[in-house]
């Protein structure tokens, strides 16, 4: 590996670096203010106050009340808790065993729904259209008197498309159905107001917004019945036991305030970079942008390249110092391509050749230049050794209708 190459981190949808501001905010809670927030003496109460300030700050970023915020260990935990907790409570209290979600949710949602199917729930997986969006009217048509819960992600992690969340919230409210959204990718990129958008539960994660890994939060609107996540002590209003991870919770609150205070600046800075990247990459022959260009996170793009396999593309980018990801299943240890790319109607043959580039606050225009300089050469190199590309060029297979 050549260590002199430029380093470009273009996988901010996977995780982000902890910011200096967040790190500094956390440091006192490791060795100085290390008390247990449940302890009555001063050292404990010194930790309790910042914990509650973090709760209030996180709530304010979402338009929620402090007592509606529960800190968790990650976005996946928040999704599990919201969906299982609400679905089970709804079935027990109201006899409603039906859940609606979409085909391209994060696995934290999809696998949770599948687990509930094994408990006897029925789940409707709404189709996702070519543009990477669910249709509100299809959602509404899927609601029955047995529907307990709708869970639709705010923005898709793999292709970056932003769902019509306020409209979905409106429909759910009108039908008296609970609405949960996984907003892990949306925080800091989209203005979120849980009250105005009729969101009953919302999952978020710290490490996507420059807080550390290992902390997340779940908003549960007051009055919504959700079974406890973890039984034990009285932490998190008795609903999620376990001594609070004070340092990281303070880090999360610091990060979410920064992320939500600077949404407009972030969108204004990243959108032109993203669009220049899209325009540049689409100059590559037989390439496509996955999902709507318009309803898209400012820093998230996903492409497919005919005749190229995603993992080898990632490895070659890595050799050039670029960290990116692929929907390619090879990387995740299964041989099927991304369920997200299949859900938007791509055949396996095209979905295998995917690349996701996701930008954040630390990326620059020079990163775009560098990627645009390196990527076409890599695609060329891989295509030159690809018998599939050979078949595409000679016309014996044709994937152009999917481009």
């Amino acid at each position, binding site marked *: 590996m050549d260590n002199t190459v430029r380093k470009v981190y273009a996988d901010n949808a996977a995780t982000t670096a902890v910011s200096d501001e967040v790190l500094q905010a956390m440091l006192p809670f490791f060795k100085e203010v290390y008390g247990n927030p449940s302890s009555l003496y001063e050292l404990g109460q010194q930790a309790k106050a910042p914990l509650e300030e973090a709760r209030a700050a996180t709530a304010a970023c979402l338009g929620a009340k402090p007592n509606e915020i529960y800190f968790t260990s990650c976005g996946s935990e928040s999704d599990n808790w919201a969906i299982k907790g609400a679905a089970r409570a709804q079935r027990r209290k109201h006899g409603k065993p039906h859940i609606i979600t979409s085909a391209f949710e994060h696995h934290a949602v999809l696998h949770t729904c599948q687990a509930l199917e094994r408990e006897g729930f029925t789940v409707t997986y709404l189709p996702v259209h070519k543009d990477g969006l669910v249709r509100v009217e299809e959602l509404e048509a899927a609601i029955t008197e047995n529907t307990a819960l709708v869970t639709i992600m705010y923005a898709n992690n793999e292709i970056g498309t932003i769902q019509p969340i306020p409209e979905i919230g409106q429909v759910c409210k009108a039908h008296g159905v609970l609405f949960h959204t996984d907003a892990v990718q949306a925080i800091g990129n989209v203005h979120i107001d849980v009250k105005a958008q009729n969101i009953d539960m919302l999952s978020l994660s710290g490490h996507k917004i420059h807080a550390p890994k290992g902390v997340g939060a779940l908003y549960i609107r007051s009055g919504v019945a959700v079974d406890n996540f973890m039984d034990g002590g009285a932490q998190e209003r008795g609903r999620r036991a376990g001594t609070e991870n004070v340092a990281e919770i303070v880090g999360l609150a610091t990060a979410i305030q920064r992320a939500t205070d600077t949404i407009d600046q972030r969108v204004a800075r990243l959108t032109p970079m993203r669009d220049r990247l899209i325009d540049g990459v689409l100059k590559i022959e037989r390439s496509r942008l996955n999902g709507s260009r318009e309803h898209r996170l400012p820093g998230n793009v996903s492409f497919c390249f005919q005749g190229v396999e995603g993992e*080898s593309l990632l490895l070659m980018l890595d050799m050039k110092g670029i960290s990116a990801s692929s929907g390619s299943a090879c990387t995740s240890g299964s*041989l099927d391509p991304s369920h997200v790319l299949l859900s938007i109607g791509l*055949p396996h043959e095209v979905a295998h050749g995917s690349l996701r580039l996701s930008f954040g606050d630390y990326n620059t225009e020079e990163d775009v230049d560098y990627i645009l300089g390196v990527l076409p050469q890599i695609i060329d190199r891989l295509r030159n050794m690809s018998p599939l590309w050979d078949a595409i060029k000679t016309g014996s297979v044709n994937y152009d209708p999917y481009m």
Partner: protein
Amino acid sequence: MAYSEKVMDHFANPRNVGEMQDFSGVGEVGNPKCGDIMRMYIKVEGDVITDVSFMTFGCGAAIATSSMATELIKGKTIGEALKLTNKAVMEALDGLPPVKVHCSVLAEQAIKAAVSDYYQRQGIDPTPIVGEIPACEECGCEI
């Protein structure tokens, strides 16, 4: 999942890569739906494989196993090439992650497919010599 240094070397600097014009036999295995296709060209003089090259669409392991397989059969007799197992390819690469074992199987099959084609071009039925080449063995994907 991490690749050995040898896998990364063969991926980054694949040996014997590219199309061959004056080949004696060519075989292709895998399919695009599974995400890997290997095409192997051989040039045979007497019963010796004097030249070999490959083209591969696939992951890092698919490219590396193709490359290693070409190195292992170049200059060998057809009989020796047919004895090359996927295990030998893996061992030569200092191992593969379990989910990538099927790539080495493809490499073994690609050689057999190229030899079969060579025999067919000679008017010889390859099946008694090479055996059946199963389609997409161990891939496990839904076709």
